[in-house]
């Protein structure tokens, strides 16, 4: 004889256990996510700051090879040399410095110090012949030192920063000459071999152009294919076969599409390599099945009664489809499209194959210019040995994630806002 009281208790207990398992699974998943985000954020946030060192620059006419007695024109200043101005000003930081030490000081600054010195005098021509304080970009190593990411306790021979450089840097720091500001150049510069100058502008624009090309190619094709298959095509073996193959296409590893892009777009059609145009077309092969599947699902979700109503009013099949079925299915189709594009945005492998992994230090102005893309940029930087690129990798991941989150939000909004309710 079963004790029914005990039996009931057992059932309650097993239900509680089941709920506990479910909750633990959710907590575990959130924990992974939190650790992942924390790691990326804590390594990456410093990349949005950049270190500057202010030092007195001696705009001595002698170093600029200009006549001291005569006020130079802007054109003269433009044509002048600034390397010596820099070197002499660096040497002035330490009166007793020997040649090696002066080179050490020079290496404390980004190699574009000449440009920065020139830029200052061009915007302040009155400083000609004077000694004025100018803000120069610190080298990536000192940038890391200032942000506290550099292991100063390592023995000198294992460091890229010399003891002498640290001494000068600490002195300047104590005088309040070192500051860090928001790193605009991270967003406006293209990639660079120097971490302090490297930015995501090229890869961001590359990604943007790629997904625009991808959208322009895949959306119309996918929509037409989905409409034809769902609304017009007879249901027979051939259409079943096509349907199975579309579903298979969605499961093909992305690198295979990269090979296809390489073999067909570059080799046969001779399109320019490393360009968002080729990248976008290659990615559109990936998004095609995703959009077709989403569009067909949302066409299927339109109640047949709407089609019957239109047909019974004497609308042709095309009118029924274009006036009623497609507008009703668009919210679902659009959010499916955005999800597909978001996948394409995060795709690396096919882009590497079609050459978008090249080092590109220009910002593309059109889809026909060579460019990197955000995920490939992450890959390129992650390969770099320099310490300065570590934070850049995380920062780039953050930008990519924000991009993706915004796209997914847009998909959600479209779905909620435009979805029509029927009965």
């Amino acid at each position, binding site marked *: 004889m079963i004790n029914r009281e005990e039996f009931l208790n057992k059932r309650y207990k097993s239900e509680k256990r089941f709920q506990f398992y479910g909750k633990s699974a959710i907590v575990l998943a959130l924990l992974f996510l939190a650790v992942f985000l924390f790691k990326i954020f804590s390594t990456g946030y410093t990349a949005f700051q950049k270190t500057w060192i202010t030092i007195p620059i001696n705009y001595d006419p002698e170093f600029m090879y200009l006549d001291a007695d005569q006020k130079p024109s802007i054109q003269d200043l433009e044509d002048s040399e600034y390397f010596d101005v820099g070197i002499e000003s660096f040497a002035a930081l330490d009166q007793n410095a020997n040649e090696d030490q002066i080179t050490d000081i020079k290496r404390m600054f980004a190699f574009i110090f000449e440009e920065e010195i020139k830029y200052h005098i061009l915007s302040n021509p009155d400083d000609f012949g004077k000694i004025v304080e100018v803000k120069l970009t610190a080298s990536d190593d000192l940038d890391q030192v200032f942000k506290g990411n550099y292991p100063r306790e390592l023995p000198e021979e294992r460091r890229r920063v010399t003891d002498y450089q640290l001494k000068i840097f600490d002195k300047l720091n104590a005088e309040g000459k070192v500051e860090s500001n928001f790193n605009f150049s991270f967003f406006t510069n293209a990639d660079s071999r120097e971490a302090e100058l490297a930015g995501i502008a090229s890869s961001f624009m590359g990604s943007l152009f790629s997904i625009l090309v991808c959208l322009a190619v895949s959306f119309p094709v996918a929509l037409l294919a989905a409409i034809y298959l769902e609304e017009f095509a007879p249901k027979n073996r051939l259409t079943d076969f096509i349907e199975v193959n579309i579903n298979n296409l969605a499961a093909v590893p992305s690198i295979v599409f990269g090979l296809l892009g390489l073999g067909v777009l570059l080799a046969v059609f001779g399109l320019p390599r490393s360009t968002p145009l080729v990248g976008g077309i290659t990615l559109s092969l990936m998004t095609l099945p995703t959009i077709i599947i989403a569009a067909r699902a949302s066409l299927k979700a339109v109640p047949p*009664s709407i089609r019957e109503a239109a047909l019974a009013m004497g609308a042709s099949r095309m009118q029924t489809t274009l006036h009623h079925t497609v507008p009703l299915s668009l919210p679902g189709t659009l959010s499916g499209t955005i999800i597909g594009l978001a996948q394409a945005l995060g795709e690396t492998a096919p882009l590497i194959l079609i050459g978008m992994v090249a080092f590109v230090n220009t910002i593309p102005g059109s889809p026909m210019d060579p460019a990197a893309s955000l995920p490939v940029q992450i890959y390129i930087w992650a390969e770099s040995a320099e310490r300065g690129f570590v934070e850049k990798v995380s920062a780039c991941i953050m930008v990519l994630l924000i991009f993706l989150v915004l796209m997914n939000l847009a998909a959600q909004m479209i779905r909620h806002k435009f979805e029509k309710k029927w009965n």
Partner: protein
Amino acid sequence: MNKIEAKNVNVFYGEKQALFDINMDIQEKQVTALIGPSGCGKSTFLRCLNRMNDVIDICKVEGEIKINDYNINQKGTDVVRLREKIGMVFQKPNPFPKTLYENISYGPEIHGMAQSKDELDQIVEDSLKKAALWNEVKDRLNEPGTGLSGGQQQRLCIARAISVKPEVILMDEPCSALDPIATAQIEELIDELKKEHTIVIVTHSMSQAARVSQQTGFFHLGKLIEVGSTDKIFKNPDQQQTQDYITGRFG
């Protein structure tokens, strides 16, 4: 006068035959009710009359259906023109998820019936008035049609059907999703509409058939068992099967 003449109509769904040799005449400007138990083929027959069965891939229709002496099953029949002449109202109200105005104006627009916006406005107003809906909705023509109550939605669908001035209106159990008050309103409307239109109505409710129709056809297992004036079918049918169904002994 015969508006519709069906001769030897057979319908197949794939291998399965759904209608067997249906011969039936439908009178002009009268209400003809099709009754019978579920699955007897009455809706299938109704959908033959405006060729809505074309939508179903596996469905095949044989035989002759003459409307105004023109066989609609012959090759080259323009179904768009046909459905302009023969409107349809479905079992479940199915307004377009658009505004009330657009629901009614859609038919006249695609058939190019209005020359101007004023003319279109007039058609919308007339159709809604004929469907006895005008007074309830005239102030909210720009609200969605799906926001109306079930009975109002069905009257909207009737207004939509009559907006293109069809000669025949087919109704497939138009009241089965409605409450008794809404049903009564629709029945009144049907009585009004038969002055200008020929109406064929499929119904599950025998009392409804008795109330609204002048002719009744009784279907059973894909065959037309008996057809005649509603009075005769309900009071003194020729067939025993009809008698049994009317009196509720089966079905």
